[in-house]
């Protein structure tokens, strides 16, 4: 059968090769995982179970259950100073990933240039490509702690782009942007009349500085789509639930794509999410505390080993420099000889090359053992 060109031009994920090696091995400690090691809070799981028992197995409204949208609106207002109307400015999606895909399809015309701050989550480039847009890589640098600066935006021609995609706190680097730093990006975006897709899925996971949404700056709300969800902060990855927030005409357009493809986000997951927002704050706080301890543990261990690693302050990743020139060879040898799985940074864009993504969403015993193995591997 013929495979469409736009699909053929997207290479398979760079993680695949490592995944296949790991599959054949026992005793692998994986720090290659982009999801929490915690389980979703019990109250949320119980709400999902109860909803199934009560027979809540039909579609919901295309945009998601009204009650859930209201809770989301309340939450983002109190936590991130974002005001969105639950009626027409919030769309509940099957993970933030679906939200992003829907946004690309709703907002990108063929030939539109979509600037993507990198290193970044691996779905942005394919998402833009599937929608017919032209991805433009905007590489951030380690000397800036992988933050996006106006100098970088200028140097890579983002002024002439149509859209900018950014993700802070960042996967894979763990970088965050302070309010002042984000203000500069906001100014640039306004001056050059760009649309912004802000993937804020890790917004709850910062250590030290609190998250600032780019949509909170003057003139940004009307040109920004904000994405968030329950996967990371609430450890609900498999439930696939996220949401997008934007002005009414944008949500209406996104909903048009969403209603003809997804119809509505999984109903069971929506009940779990509703409960998560209503009663699981303490679990989120506790998980964040645990991540912060692990973050400091891993950073300390890399420092002891003499591995150069900038101080990541968000998400659950650190992004050390690879001790070898060939990042792929290092990751493969480490996996085969010591059974420790890490992801080479170039998987997240060329600017990530020379680095390794280390997820600290693992128990302290695993982290301790993994670090000991890395130390042994380095000799």
């Amino acid at each position: 059968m013929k495979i469409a060109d736009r699909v053929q031009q997207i290479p398979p994920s760079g993680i695949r090769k490592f995944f296949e090696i790991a599959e054949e091995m026992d005793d692998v400690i994986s720090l290659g995982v982009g999801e929490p090691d915690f389980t979703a809070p019990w109250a949320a799981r119980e709400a999902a179970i109860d909803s199934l028992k009560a027979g809540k197995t039909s579609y919901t409204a295309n945009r998601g259950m009204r009650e859930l949208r209201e809770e989301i609106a309340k939450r983002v207002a109190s936590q991130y100073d974002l005001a969105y109307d639950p009626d027409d400015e919030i769309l509940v999606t099957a993970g933030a990933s679906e939200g992003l895909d829907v946004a690309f399809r709703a907002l990108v015309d063929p030939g539109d240039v979509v600037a993507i701050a990198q290193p970044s989550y691996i779905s942005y480039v394919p998402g833009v490509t599937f929608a017919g847009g032209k991805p433009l890589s905007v590489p951030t640098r380690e000397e800036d702690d992988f933050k996006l600066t106006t100098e970088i935006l200028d140097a890579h021609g983002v002024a002439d782009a149509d859209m900018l995609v950014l993700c802070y706190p960042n996967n894979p680097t763990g970088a965050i942007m302070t309010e002042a730093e984000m203000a500069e990006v906001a100014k640039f975006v306004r001056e050059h009349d760009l649309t912004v897709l802000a993937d804020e899925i890790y917004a709850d996971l910062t250590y030290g500085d609190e998250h600032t949404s780019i949509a909170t700056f003057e003139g940004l709300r009307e040109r920004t789509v904000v994405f968030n969800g329950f996967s990371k902060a609430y450890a609900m990855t498999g439930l696939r639930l996220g949401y997008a927030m934007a002005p009414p005409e944008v949500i209406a357009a996104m909903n048009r794509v969403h209603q003809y493809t997804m119809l509505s986000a999984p109903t069971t997951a929506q009940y779990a999410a509703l409960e998560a927002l209503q009663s699981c704050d303490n679990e989120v706080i506790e998980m964040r505390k645990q991540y912060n301890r692990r973050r400091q543990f891993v950073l300390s261990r890399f420092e002891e080993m003499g591995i150069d690693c900038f101080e990541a302050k968000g998400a659950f990743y650190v992004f050390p420099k690879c001790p070898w020139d060939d990042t792929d060879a290092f990751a493969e040898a480490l996996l085969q000889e010591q059974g420790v799985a890490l992801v080479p940074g170039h998987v997240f864009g060329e600017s990530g090359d020379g680095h390794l993504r280390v997820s600290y969403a693992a128990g302290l015993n695993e982290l301790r053992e993994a670090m000991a193995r890395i130390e042994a591997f380095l000799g």
Partner: protein
Amino acid sequence: MSTRDELLALLLENARYSTEDLARQTGADAEAVAAAIEELEASGLIRGYQAVVDWDRADQERIRALVELNVTLDRETGYDDIAGRLVKFPPVKSLRLVSGDYDFALEVEGDSLREVSKFISEKVAPVPEITQTVTHYIMETYKDRGLEMGDGHDDGRLSFSP
């Protein structure tokens, strides 16, 4: 959160963390951590360190009972006097003054049902101020000091994900 509070939280989670690992997790240096723990111990805030044991998995039998105690006080005898007497007995594992239908909640542990019963009837019940004892033998422990006694949770995650 101060380093002291953070250390306390970590030790409550796992008292066997090494000083080095405590230092790495809090971003403090190992000497400061050792000094802070010494201070926590010296001040009596940390009373000790114990394992949480799932006795259902052990070969030896372990009998535990929760005992509700009602007492009458008089001018010479207060709660502290009665408590001071009861805590001296080694089988008493915990003793708390509580609100509600009874006064003290007492936890007793022994090697056999007979030993525990004998202790309650011969050492606890005869205390003159104690007017009533209601003994609940523990039949099954599902969770103790925050730890579930089940089989735990397998990490079902893939080894790599973006």
